[in-house]
């Protein structure tokens, strides 16, 4: 057969074999990977909404998702909100939990961030930043307590602490939380939280 048809044949069969092999590996690892991702989300929800045994995704959007934390017998314990926005250098993704009436913010953890290490990256640290986020009153907009306080009790319930030298990062975390709270309240008001998957097209 002519050279060109030999070329097409060889390339396509190479493509075929490798895609077959890939598909096999894909299937073999697919559920393992899905499990990992799920595991990570599950873990974050448990830390953020204490006392949840099982979680259920209520609403999902590109950079925003709401999960319901439930005990074994299915009673709602609180909402876990997954949110991401732009920080000092790149995007920050985080998860925070609220109580049922969305009045109190229970806890906050940072999933992924690429802030300047040593400075902005301290928002991941428990003692420097996350500790000050426990049970904040979120009826009103949260504000930043300017010169960094050393212990949580210096802050009023609607205030959170800044990291010395990394004001921009702390501020962006705060902004993302306030924005997502608004979205959450608006979703609850419209009853959009019935577990429907509203696909945001583009």
């Amino acid at each position, binding site marked *: 057969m002519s*050279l060109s048809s030999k*070329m097409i044949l*060889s390339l396509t069969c190479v493509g075929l074999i490798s895609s077959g*092999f890939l598909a096999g590996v894909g299937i073999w*690892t697919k559920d*393992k990977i899905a499990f*990992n991702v799920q595991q990570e989300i599950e873990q974050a929800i448990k830390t953020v909404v204490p006392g949840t045994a099982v979680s259920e995704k209520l609403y999902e959007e590109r950079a925003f998702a709401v999960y319901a934390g439930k005990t074994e017998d299915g009673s709602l314990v609180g909402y876990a909100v997954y949110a991401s926005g732009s920080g000092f250098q790149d995007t920050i993704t985080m998860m925070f939990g609220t109580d049922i009436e969305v009045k109190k913010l229970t806890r906050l953890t940072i999933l992924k961030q690429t802030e*300047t*290490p040593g400075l902005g990256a301290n928002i991941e640290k428990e003692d420097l930043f996350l500790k000050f986020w426990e049970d904040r009153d979120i009826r009103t907009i949260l504000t930043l307590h300017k010169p960094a306080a050393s212990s949580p009790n210096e802050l009023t319930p609607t205030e959170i602490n800044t990291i010395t030298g990394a004001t921009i990062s702390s501020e962006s975390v705060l902004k993302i939380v306030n924005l997502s709270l608004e979205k959450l309240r608006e979703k609850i008001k419209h009853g959009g939280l019935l577990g429907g998957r509203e696909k945001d097209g583009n």
Partner: protein
Amino acid sequence: MATKTLSAEYVKGLWDENPVFRQLLGLCPTLAVTNAVINGIAMGLATTFVLLLSSLVVSLIKKVIPNQVRIASYIVIIACFVTVADLFLQAFFYPISKALGPYVPLIVVNCVILGRQEAFSSKNSVGRSMIDALGMSTGFVLALLLLSSVREILGAGTFLGIQVLGSWFKPWIIMLLPAGAFIAFGLLLGLALLIESKTQKRRA
């Protein structure tokens, strides 16, 4: 081509033709992931995995593939192995794969692998190209190890997570940033050339 002994084939990958320091190939991942030694080693091993397997397959099928389609089929094979490596990392070492981010699939465009296939594996027997691939990848891993240890020790004062320098040392955060990567690699490259020229003078 003067046929070198098998051991010479392996050793040349380590220093004389070290892909990173001498041929300046595959710099994208080298600079990107070496901010921690664990990441460096992971990337090195992933590249070794892909390089070995693709060398094996390429040297096996080199007679079957017509000359013109040669490069395209190599790309498909390498891409397939890279995806396998990526999936494997995501499945079993999820935190490392998250840390390496987009750079694992980027091995497919890494000149080291494509270069070795084109220049070497497509011309030599299976055994020899395997040794060469092994040599090249060990050279690559060593280079990554060297750069990532320099950057981690200076940048965070730790090596593989263990605190190495005492508490007196204030870590140079710049070494974890892209700027530090460039400067450290540039200086290391200069050092390598200096040593090379010194040994050259003594040998000549």
